[in-house]
């Protein structure tokens, strides 16, 4: 295989672009895709302070690296989830990346700072761990960004993640979720802007980006995600992609460009007044926000 740009030896093929790249031009490809996503969806303003949600995995560390490479002022926040050795290793990868590249990494530990871990929450609620994990991340990343003056939270959701979520939402016709699935969620009172600059890059590209850039990351799968429905959707989409390269991108980008407006009526009323959680002050339609209800259930105050 030859690099599409320089005709030198290629190290990776990207079949949906009918292209292969040498290391140098593969990095350029990744950077261009992120820049295009940021521009197309107006994700960032020139002087935004960006907080990257860092997990220690390929997507978040790769995203952080790509954003800094594009000149974006981006710091990281690592959230310790308390998932045993998996979390210990993930935190180490995040710290090592930040130390080696001279970047600012903030840390919040769910067990030490909030009072419960993801396994605690799963056991107390009898729900899948990913549910408490996602709720905790959304609440704590947003709260940290507001408190520390960041304009934007950037997450490492890639093309495969978003296509899998879209497939799940379509299969169950979850129209309110379809209305909210966007590369950018604008800021609102009590919420910073949320952006997903990796929507044009697949997870194979992100793993390859980290290998080429010599970024060590958590390769092992989260032990709590085993059997996760989204992993199954990804397998199904990859089977389609094998037969017809470009299917995942056409599915996701077609939805964002043409399908999304059809679900506008299913959006929660953006003008609706949200109150403030009486525990933490976060926006909520009720008295107490979902995160504080979870905390009260898992780690009740003495």
């Amino acid at each position, binding site marked *: *295989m030859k690099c599409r740009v320089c005709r030198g030896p290629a*190290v990776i093929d990207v079949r949906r672009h009918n292209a292969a790249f040498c290391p140098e031009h593969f990095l350029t490809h990744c950077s261009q895709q992120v820049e295009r996503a940021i521009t197309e969806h107006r994700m960032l303003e020139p002087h935004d302070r960006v907080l990257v949600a860092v997990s220690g995995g390929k*997507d978040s560390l790769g995203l952080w690296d790509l954003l800094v490479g594009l000149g974006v002022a981006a710091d990281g926040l690592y959230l310790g989830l308390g998932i045993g050795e998996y979390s210990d290793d993930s935190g180490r990868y995040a710290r090592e990346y930040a130390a080696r590249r001279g970047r600012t990494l903030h840390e919040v530990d769910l067990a030490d700072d909030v009072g419960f871990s993801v396994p605690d929450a799963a056991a107390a609620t009898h729900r899948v761990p990913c549910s408490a994990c996602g709720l905790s991340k959304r609440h704590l990343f947003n709260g940290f960004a507001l408190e520390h003056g960041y304009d934007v939270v950037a997450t490492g959701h890639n093309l*495969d993640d978003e296509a899998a979520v879209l497939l799940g939402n379509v299969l169950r016709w979850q129209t309110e979720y379809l209305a909210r699935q966007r590369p950018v969620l604008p800021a609102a009172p009590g919420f910073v802007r949320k952006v997903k600059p990796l929507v044009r890059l697949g*997870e194979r590209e*992100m*793993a390859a980006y980290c290998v080429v850039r010599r970024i060590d990351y958590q390769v092992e799968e989260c032990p709590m*995600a*085993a059997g996760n429905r989204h992993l199954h959707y990804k397998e199904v989409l990859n089977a389609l992609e094998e037969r017809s390269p470009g299917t995942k991108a056409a599915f996701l980008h077609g939805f964002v460009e043409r399908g999304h407006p059809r679900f506008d009526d299913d959006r929660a009323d953006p003008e609706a007044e949200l109150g403030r959680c009486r525990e933490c002050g976060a926006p909520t339609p009720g008295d107490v926000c979902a995160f504080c209800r979870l905390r009260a259930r898992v780690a009740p105050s003495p």
Partner: protein
Amino acid sequence: MKVLLRNPRRELDIDGPITVTALLQRLELSPEAVLVIAGDELVPRDARLDDATTVEIRPVISGGGPAR
């Protein structure tokens, strides 16, 4: 050649030379779901792997909840 697989972590001995595509077919792995790394370097699907090469087949699919 030594072939390292992950999730779960295990090591196999496979006779070389063999192309990346043939190796993945033999192991029934989707090329969309893995990277193949020989030594420290990524290798493309048409690369031929020699018997003396140490190969890592690294999964790229990660789980986690929906992005809502």
